[in-house]
């Protein structure tokens, strides 16, 4: 009866919120949407919201103490801990983002789930988990307090809480943007409906509710997404045919890396220019496989929190190993759709569909983006009902990621910032109440961040790397603390701080352009300008003429009048003689294709609206057309990497952004370890008796008694490791 009552409350709340959603669905999207949902799809989505809210209401009575709220009572089984561990990481940004990565980088994208995850997760399970578990810490910063003292804990706690809500807000903004582009839903409504839902169920049930919902979301994400690779491979004519077609089409879709191998994991990592990621094996192994991966999986509290709440140490270890097994399967729903995007997404004329990065000026105007790979495949293969399940999987993914961030924020804020720094002696009831309200506060700060991104969308680029600044140094500090009893509090603090500073410095260095970073020469023809288009060989545009209206040029040299110096910036009106801008323009002595973008113009012959984008063709401007010209050369550009500087960080001018990030993480770890060790030799270590249960050699791992062989975490860790090696050999 109680459950029925909760369901009714949840249904009421959803019914209250739903009209806003449906009413704005029509108003939200003027552009053509990728997916059109039927009534049955909306019903499936609505049921999901009702169920997650009902679970939140149901679990409220089981969270009466701080331990219940922040640590879910420390009574999870291995399977629940493992599913939650992996689900908190399997957000839609992850599935859509890594599908996009696989479309961009081919099979190399799968490394994030293999060498970039499995060794680190197994290390967490077998080596680090006993320390986290035995010291009964509430958080990773909590471990730092016990091992090093208040300084590193405050640094880690404050940076973590700040980062968590910022990342949560960024995810929310990205979700709202994606739902707007895919379904035409109003961004405000998407942000508020999803955050209020997450806020309610975390407020009511704390981590218990978050974990419950993450397990549910894990099932939905898999069951809603796995049909895409199944149907896609059938449609492509089998696995080998799909790889063959993907490799063939990749040369057309990614012309700048047309000789790169898109279908192998290691064969193409001999040098920076034989693979689409622009990375070599060293960067992959030591950057991704060591620094980034161990930093993320072993010390990101959001992840660790999911398994330290298990009922006993063995369950915590087995839960983590289960997480590793499940992680290794994720490429099925992430990497394969990316490869399918290269193979089976075709234009009506049968040519491969070209998708572009979000930074491309044609993105979402004339061409879809990399991030649309998964939704495009959903629209191609999933009919009514299944599409609703697929979209529910996406929404579930967004919400599980956000719930993870909010519950981790509430824990770290309450135990590592509020309790030690602001109010040491309050009752458990007070901290429980603080945790509940922190969940709401976390949601509100996330919403504020999401709205900030409406106006400062460039922050997103900063946020994506911000995580690397902190988690890699954090891993260096924690692991030395666990394995080396001589590491001192001063060593830990200065190592951590030095690595954060060096990470930030490297980031600034590779984005600095002493000679200025100049965007590609481009022309955007303003809305409602009148254009005529000359075509040859069927539909191929050979020349564009602007009859009237306005154009905006960036970094284009304009020969305004014969005999006078050409101009690059300012506002002008085309003289009676007219102007022709050549298809190839010189930019700092380098010949580049002129990029012409027409988001919404009127064709002079038919008077119909048209939109297209072309490169390398001449543009004729008729008398009277207004030109707004600008010349941009930025000394610092967060969206671009300076090859002259990247060679010092990533060993080669050919290193691409991903390689630079991996190498930066590697250097950051090296600096952290070196400074911590160096400072520790000159400073006083903590007494041995204070390091018991915190450091290897001084910790007695409790004997949990005999267990059947199939409950032995070391055995399963070995099995997963062997499977990892086999997979890497098969797809070498």
């Amino acid at each position: 009866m109680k459950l029925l009552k909760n369901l009714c409350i949840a249904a009421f709340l959803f019914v209250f919120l739903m009209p806003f959603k449906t009413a704005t669905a029509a108003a939200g999207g003027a552009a053509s949407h990728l997916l059109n949902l039927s009534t049955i799809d909306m019903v499936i989505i609505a049921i999901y919201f009702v169920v997650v809210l009902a679970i939140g209401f149901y679990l409220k009575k089981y969270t009466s103490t701080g331990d219940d709220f922040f640590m879910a009572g420390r009574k999870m089984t291995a399977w629940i801990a493992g599913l939650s561990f992996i689900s908190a990481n399997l957000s839609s940004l992850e599935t859509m983002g890594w599908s996009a990565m696989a479309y961009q980088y081919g099979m190399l994208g799968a490394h994030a789930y293999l060498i970039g995850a499995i060794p680190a997760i197994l290390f967490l399970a077998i080596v680090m988990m006993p320390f986290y578990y035995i010291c009964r810490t509430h958080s990773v910063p909590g471990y730092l307090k016990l091992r090093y003292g208040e300084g590193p804990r405050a640094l880690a706690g404050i940076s973590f809480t700040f980062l968590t809500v910022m990342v949560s807000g960024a995810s929310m903004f990205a979700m709202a943007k994606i739902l707007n582009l895919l379904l035409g839903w109003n961004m405000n409504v998407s942000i508020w409906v999803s955050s209020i839902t997450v806020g309610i169920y975390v407020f009511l049930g704390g981590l218990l509710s978050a974990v419950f919902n993450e397990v549910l979301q894990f099932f939905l994400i898999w069951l809603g997404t796995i049909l895409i690779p199944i149907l896609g491979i059938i449609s492509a004519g089998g696995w080998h045919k799909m790889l063959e077609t993907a490799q063939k089409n990749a040369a057309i879709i990614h012309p700048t890396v047309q000789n790169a191998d898109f279908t192998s994991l290691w064969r193409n990592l001999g040098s920076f220019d034989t693979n689409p990621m622009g990375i070599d094996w060293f960067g992959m192994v030591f950057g991704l496989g060591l620094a980034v991966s161990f930093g993320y999986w072993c010390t990101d509290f959001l992840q660790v929190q999911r398994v330290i709440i298990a009922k006993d140490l063995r369950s915590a270890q087995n839960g983590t190993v289960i997480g590793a097994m499940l992680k290794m399967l994720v490429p099925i729903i992430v990497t394969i759709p990316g490869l399918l995007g290269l193979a089976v997404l075709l234009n009506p004329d049968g040519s491969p569909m070209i998708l572009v990065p979000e930074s491309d000026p044609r993105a979402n105007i004339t061409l879809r983006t990399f991030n649309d790979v998964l939704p495009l495949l959903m629209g191609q293969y999933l009919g009514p009902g299944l599409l609703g399940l697929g979209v529910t999987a996406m929404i579930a993914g967004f919400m599980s990621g956000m719930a993870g961030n909010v519950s981790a924020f509430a824990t770290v804020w309450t135990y590592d910032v509020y309790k030690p720094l602001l109010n040491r002696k309050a009752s458990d009831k007070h901290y429980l109440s603080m945790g509940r309200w922190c969940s709401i506060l976390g949601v509100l700060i996330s919403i504020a961040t999401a709205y900030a991104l409406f106006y400062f969308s460039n922050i997103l680029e900063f946020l994506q790397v911000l995580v690397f600044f902190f988690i890699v140094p954090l891993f260096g500090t924690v692991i030395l603390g666990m394995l080396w009893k001589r590491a001192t509090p001063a060593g830990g603090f200065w190592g951590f701080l030095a690595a954060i500073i060096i990470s930030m410095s490297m980031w600034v260095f590779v984005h600095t352009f002493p000679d200025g970073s100049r965007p590609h020469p481009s022309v955007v023809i303003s809305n409602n300008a009148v254009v005529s288009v000359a075509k040859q060989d069927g539909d191929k545009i050979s020349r564009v003429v602007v009859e009237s209206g306005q154009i905006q040029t960036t970094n284009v040299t304009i020969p305004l009048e014969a005999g006078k110096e050409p101009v690059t910036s300012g506002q002008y009106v085309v003289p009676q003689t007219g102007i022709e801008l050549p298809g190839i323009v010189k930019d700092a002595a380098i010949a580049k294709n002129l990029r012409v973008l027409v988001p919404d113009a009127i064709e002079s012959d038919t008077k119909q609206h048209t939109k297209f984008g072309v490169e390398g063709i001449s543009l004729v401007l008729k008398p009277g057309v207004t030109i707004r010209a600008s010349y941009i050369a930025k000394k610092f550009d967060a969206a671009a990497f300076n090859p002259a500087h990247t060679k010092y960080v990533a060993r080669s001018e050919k290193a691409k952004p991903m390689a630079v990030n991996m190498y930066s993480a590697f250097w950051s770890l090296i600096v952290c370890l070196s400074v911590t060790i160096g400072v520790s030799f000159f400073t006083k270590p903590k007494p041995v008796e204070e390091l018991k249960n915190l450091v290897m050699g001084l910790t007695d791992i409790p004997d949990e008694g005999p267990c059947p062989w199939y409950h032995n975490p070391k055995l399963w860790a070995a099995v997963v490791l062997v499977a990892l090696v086999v997979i890497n050999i098969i797809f070498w």
Partner: protein
Amino acid sequence: MHSEHQIPIWFFIGLLLTVYGVLILGCGIYNVICPPEHPVKLANLHADIWWGILLLVIGLIYTIKYRPSKD
């Protein structure tokens, strides 16, 4: 989930999958009877029917196995 009277998460999962299975299976059967004007690719495989059945079976197994007991 381990407290004496707490309904296990598996029951909620089972319930949700059962409802989804029924809806998707129903949708698939409807599509066979009244084929849509613009079918998706590989609609001839009737993925909605067999996926609906799969969800229904998994859902029922979980719902029955983990249903809350009366005591």
